[in-house]
């Protein structure tokens, strides 16, 4: 929590994950856990909270999808370029004791923290179903990495270019009906996560979600990421929260707030 201000390191490796996403490896030991995030700082371009997509002895990684000015600037970086960070911050995914099989459901770049979780779980001998949905084949992330790690990868795309033409909750439904799953973990658009939790609840399976809100400070002061009606800050008591808690939040899947604090749909 006190790892502020920023540490600036040279990027040691860049991996192209999809047509618009890259993974950046930075040196250093964070002792992070899957689901936690760092505040990533590119001097001159800004600062954003980004979930960790892995940590090994070689360093830690973040996977950045080029969507806005900041992430586009980051995605132009190459090995040897400098990138700042502080953290890790926030709560993490928790594997149940004696878990035998878990199911991870990712949508879009939400797969990043799940890939990290998958590797940790497989390391502990847990069977991992990795469901990933994306708009099209070229936007799927980590499928090779997950297969190599030993996960059972199930993909689906909106356009049918890889896997069935459906959404990831549809795939989850089949998995839950055919396998005994101890816990479901999800990260992606809230509408998708809501469906995932409801499916898990229907099967009486616990779930955890990664819930994102506009964050400015990352250290529990600015209050920008407070959620209704509980008033908790997701940089402190999130981003990983139980599915039950997410469903109890009035704004989950309904609205969020912009940088002014004004409510915005979705």
């Amino acid at each position, binding site marked *: 929590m006190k790892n502020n201000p*920023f540490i600036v390191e040279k990027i040691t490796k860049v991996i192209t994950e999809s047509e618009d996403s890259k993974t950046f490896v930075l040196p250093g030991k964070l002792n992070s856990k899957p689901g936690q995030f760092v505040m990533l*700082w590119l*001097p*001159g371009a800004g600062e954003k909270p980004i979930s960790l997509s892995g940590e090994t002895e070689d360093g830690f990684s973040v996977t950045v999808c080029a969507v806005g000015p900041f992430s586009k600037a980051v995605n132009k970086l190459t090995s040897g370029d*400098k990138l700042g960070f502080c953290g890790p911050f926030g709560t993490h995914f928790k594997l149940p004791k004696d878990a035998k099989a878990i199911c991870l459901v990712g949508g879009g770049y939400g797969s990043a923290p799940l890939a990290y979780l998958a590797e940790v779980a497989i390391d502990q001998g847990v069977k991992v179903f990795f469901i990933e949905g994306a708009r099209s084949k070229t936007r799927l992330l980590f499928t090779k990495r997950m297969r190599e790690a030993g996960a059972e990868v199930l993909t689906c795309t909106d356009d049918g270019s890889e896997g069935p033409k459906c959404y990831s909750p549809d795939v989850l439904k089949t998995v839950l009906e055919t396998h005994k799953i101890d816990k479901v973990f999800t990260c992606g658009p809230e509408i998708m996560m809501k469906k995932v939790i409801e499916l898990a609840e229907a099967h009486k399976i616990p779930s955890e979600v990664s819930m994102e809100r506009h964050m*400015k400070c990352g*250290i529990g002061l600015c209050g920008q990421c407070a959620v209704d009606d509980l*008033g908790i800050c997701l940089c402190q008591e999130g981003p990983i929260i139980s599915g039950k808690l997410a469903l109890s939040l009035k704004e989950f899947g309904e609205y969020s707030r912009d940088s*002014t604090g*004004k409510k915005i749909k979705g």
Partner: protein
Amino acid sequence: MLSTILAGVKLQNPTVLASGIRGVTGSSLVYMAKQGAGALTTKSISLKERKGHPTPVMATYEQGIINAVGLSNPGAEEALPEIEYAVAKSQVPVITSIFASTITEFGKVAEIVAKANPAAIEVNISCPNVEDEFGRPFACDPGISTVVIQKIKKVTSLPVFAKLTPNVNNIGEIAMAAEKGGADGITAINTAGPGMIIDIESATPVLSNKVGGISGPAIKPLAVRCVYDIHKATKLPIIGTGGVNSGRDAVEMIMAGASAVGLGSAVYYRGPDVFKQVSSEIEEFMLKEGYKSIEEMRGVAHEK
């Protein structure tokens, strides 16, 4: 034992959530009340919405925090339901902080937020992070401070607190000017500086705004001195703010002349329940030293 009265507003304990800390939404404010805050201050609200500065807007260093959030807020009309929510559900007094770039606008914002019926209005005439039409905070000029408060007192009967900057030669004079304008109390101090932190690996100022207000333990002696000077100059109640992190810090502020203490950066150092922690530490000190009320401790350092 811990109760205190600020311009007719009764607080169960003297800890006040400082403006700009977890005060964006109604439910966030209610959450802080549950953490033991004796009163809550909203984030500063202006007439029109403001996005604030680009990130990074905050950075910690060894002895404090610097920030330049840039007074982001959704605008007075949009903020109204959030204040109303906090007023209805928090069960503690809610102080609405307001900000404007002209005197007329101050009146308009005060008129709008008063509709939520907060316990008081805090007038932020001292934010170091935005340029106003005078090129410096209103609270650097006694004459303008008087006029701003007068304007607000004309549109509302709510108690008005003036939030002052330490960046003046004579803060007592500014407090008297605010009193002359009709202020019912003073909040002191706003962040000091501004300061700057440069990251040497990238040779770049860390904050996007380059400079930011300094808070936290680094500014406590400055804040205590300012509160002392204000108490010497006027008998208005003071919310002593700046680097208060413990019950002992709070007592120091009260002995300098504060009736209540603002907590901001302390939420980072000790977690949101810092309000409960500080309250029980104040109580512990009072029992040990034989003080029976906050009022009894108030300003005692002036007698020495």
